[in-house]
């Protein structure tokens, strides 16, 4: 599933990033790698953009690119 399918507050593990070129490079440098844990912090107006937390870094990503980041949700134990 993609990051846009998550809700605010949800965490997930990155499975695969289906992008190459400059956009991949940028994501890689920001800590987006297979196995890394991401948390959805917020969505922007009209849900154009998602704010993801990766470690200490907060990254805003547009729907187009974000949908290419495959994740598997982490179940939160109650």
């Amino acid at each position, binding site marked *: 599933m993609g990051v846009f399918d998550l809700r605010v507050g949800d965490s997930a593990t990155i499975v695969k990033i289906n992008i190459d070129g400059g956009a991949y490079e*940028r994501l890689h440098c920001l*800590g987006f790698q297979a196995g890394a844990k991401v948390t959805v912090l917020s969505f922007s107006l009209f849900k154009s953009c998602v704010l993801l937390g990766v470690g*200490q870094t907060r990254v805003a990503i547009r729907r187009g690119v974000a949908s290419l980041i495959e994740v598997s949700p982490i179940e939160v134990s109650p």
Partner: protein
Amino acid sequence: VKFLSCIAKRNQHCGKPITQKGEGAKAAKVVVLAGNPNAGKTTLFNALTHSNLKTGNWHGVTTVAKQKWVGDIVFVDVPGMYSFNGYSMEEGEAARAILKADVIINVVDCLTLKNSLNLTRQLIKKNGNVIVYLTKQKALRNNGGFVDAQALSANLGVPVLDCTAKQLKKMLESGSLPKVEINKSGDLSVGLSSRLSASGSAGGFVGGSAGGAPVMSVGGAAVMSSGGASVMSAGGAAVMSAGGAAGLSSELSKAYSGGEATLKKWERLFYNKYFALLFFVAAMAFTFFVTFYPTMLGAFLKDALENLIVRGFGGWLYGRLQNEIVRSFVCEGIIAGAGGVLAFIPQITILYLFLTLLDESGIMSALSFVTDGIFEKVNLSGRAAFSLISGFGCTAAAISTTRGYVNDDARKRTIAVLPYIPCGAKLPVFLTFLSPLFKNPFPAVCVLYFCGLALSVVLSKFLKGGEEEMITEITRVGAPQLSAVKNKLFFYVKGFIIKVTTYVTIFCMASWLLSHFNWQFKFVEVDKSMLCAISRLVCPIFYPMGIRDWRIAYALITGFAAKENVAATIALLIPEGLSLSLAQSLSLCAFLLTCPACISAFAASVKEVGFKLTAKINAVQLALSFMLAYAAYFLVGLL
């Protein structure tokens, strides 16, 4: 190896153009400040070189490399970068500047240190003389994290400093950097064994830099060539092979922890779309209230200052000066004109203070994320929010913020719509046009500013071209750093004062001369002057705005040099004060809001998108502003 050391030499040679200061071709160290965006490079640069380059608490403030000499060191500030395989235009510029460096100071934000090491490794590969400088340690501590500079240094094999900028400067000047205790098991080090055999980069650095000689010693050069070897062989793939930042080793976790990663309560508020937008509108309205409302601080101080300069100082001079011509030149020309504009300092200061607080607290960064949805509808991205909000300060400065964009069409579009955001210099002019009619200009000014913002967003919808992507780091929301706010505010106000006392004053002198002499250079009434004769020729284009007074027409034209000129010229030529009808006043405001920006914004735009496109944009804009102003006069006249 010979070939590679040749490359190393050539690289040194490449640095020559930077290192030469005029004809005095003295050997110098080129020290480049490199690092991720928003790590604090420019702040450090300003501290090291006593400069006043623009800083800000968001990613991508610096867009062009800047250099400054201090003694025999050339400090170079470059835009932030994540890697050498640049994604945006500014990253490429940073990479080019780094190739010419003798010493690289890798500025690292403690909070995002883990990601930054990616670039640190690449930098060490390119050039052995890397010093890691840690910033935002207080923020890290507040976040519950820690960093052990020594342990980190042992791991990386380069000095890691957590000292003040002053101490760093001393070290650079004397060349006495702390010795690096290299940890051989350090899994973070890059090509360490080869660097050790080449006499050690740290030792080479300290030895070579003593006495201000070039930093690169023989040992250092060898370091560089061997470091270069791995880059050469791996090519672009070197970036990937450097190892993932996510794979946090046990070695690193002993040296560093980022602390709590969850959002604080107030941060969650500012990332909430409704709250953030509401907060922005309320904060703007509040600022305008304090600035423009007659009984509030801004307007009160303005009146006091105006009394002091124009009536107090001007009146005092008026009594002293005997010669009629000199008296008119000094009192009506310079003091009433330029001095009158100077009286707007309190209001401009308050307006800019608000912008600076938005920026330094990180709220502007949060806003750029939240408002992305609006900008997406007009084919821009949230990054445009930075540019547009910066436009409230100075259009020319805002134009250069577009360099961080990935899409070229989006850049051009933003530059085309930026002049609709009223810059700080337009403030005195709006008040000049509105105050004859409104006892309280506060509501009208609010409407004008929000109209400008709306106009720029809506207009970019009509400009064709590709869409802007958005992969941007968003900074933390927190209390602004007061020293940064103070420095920026002081610098901005100083700039305004300098501009008014030089540029605008000279303009006032010229206007006074032209308006008080006729073609035979005889001192005459304003209505018989050269300026009157010239201005009457162009005045007809302002007739449909209800403007038949050539003095207002001339004032509007002087605005293309600098907007402050409009207010200064009106004060100079119309000492009795403007008397306008509602239709005239609104028509003038519409014209001023939409007309092309000043000459420095034009120059900034030429630099970014070329003369041809800039001229085209400005021509269309001018035609549009006349049409709008005509329409405003006609429509309001119908009421």
